[in-house]
């Protein structure tokens, strides 16, 4: 799977970082970045939770 963020929607409020800090992070510029766009399948449940809970609906999982 691939995790993507739509920066036109993302407001870097970091809810996703709170849910899965191994996949998402806020860097010194205060912008949210995806650490690993192709995370291990074991992270799926957490990432799905982040997709659901992102208040801006900015995250998506693309199946490959």
């Amino acid at each position, binding site marked *: 799977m691939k995790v993507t963020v739509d920066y036109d929607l993302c*407001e870097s409020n970091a809810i996703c*970082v709170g849910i899965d800090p191994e996949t998402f992070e*806020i860097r010194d510029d*205060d912008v949210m970045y995806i650490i690993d766009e192709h995370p291990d399948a074991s992270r799926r449940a957490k990432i799905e939770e982040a997709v659901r*809970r992102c208040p801006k*609906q900015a995250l998506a999982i693309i199946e490959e």
Partner: protein
Amino acid sequence: MDDSATIAVVGASTAGLAAAGSLRARGFTGRLVMIGEERFRPYDRPPLSKQFLTGQWDSDRLALPGADAPDLDVDWRLGVGATGLDAASRTIGLADGSELRCDGIVLACGASARRLPGTLGVPGIHVLRTLDDAAALRRDLESGPGRVVVVGAGFVGCEVAATCRTRNIAVTLVDPLDVPLQRVFGAAVGAVFADLHRSAGVDVRTGVGVAGFDTDASGRVSRVRLDDGTAPEATVVVVGVGAVANTSWLEGSGLKIDDGIRCDPSCVAAPGIVAVGDVLRWQNPVFDESMRVEHWDHAFASGEHAAGSLLDPANAGPLATVPWFWSDQYDRKIQFAGRIAPGDDMVVVDGSLDEHRFVALFGRAGRLVGVLGMNRPRHVIGLRPRIAEGITFADALAVFA
């Protein structure tokens, strides 16, 4: 609950949709009915004072994803309000005269904008809670008003003031307290918001109440009379003086109503009945306090939690959360986690109030109880779980030392 069971969700918005989605995800295969007073499928409210009101987004961008998911399999009853409930028999009365007997009920009926006496139906005077409210206000803003007077400098009022300035409309912001958002953040942080709005050209009038409204010959609002004797001209008025839990229809239901629907710590109001979102009052073990929370994230989290409590009451745990919300005003993004009260200590640990970019920690009785960030999101989300763990104020300050 099996295939033949019926669960009704009253209120088709963020919290109700989160509960419905979670009921399905937890394996509920019975009939799911969503009853909504508004005629729309669930939509997102936060953009109503932001992207929708600036004109950046149209209403089709507001739909909450998930409402149209095929596996949600919902029997929609939109444009029909619930008018009564008998908790003992779990029977809901609807505005069209019909009744619905249920095995489970999710009360997700939210809150309504509080109004000021004498403002209902006066052309030009608005509140902002629903898509219809926002569309009516947007039309008035698009007609090129001379001046908008915003009554109440809470979040909705501050966001509307910012949106009007973004549209280059003259704005007066009025509040009886000394600074905007004083009740939420206290005087020092409130002063930052006063400064933020003044530098954007807002006429901020604090420490002054509203005495009444004048109308012109056609009956439309023309001035707001303030209790310091001044009367700013007003083509449009937006009243943002808070929200009231929608519980009047539950009178005589058998449920305990007390500024919200009083529930046990797991969101259960009565056997087979849970409450979620803005209308929920429950004892939050993190703060050992009975609370009602009016934030998007809470609507979502309580909706998912209560779905579990409804399907498996024997194993229902408490909803233990640290409230979290955001607000956008101009180019400032505000985020807050926690629960603070007047008299809490406050220390700015990063940035400064003057540059409108900072992190502030709030402490009470030696414990961290809140984190506020203005254009500093990282630390707010990082400390949120630490608040739940009970981190001391000293340890939280040490993170920034």
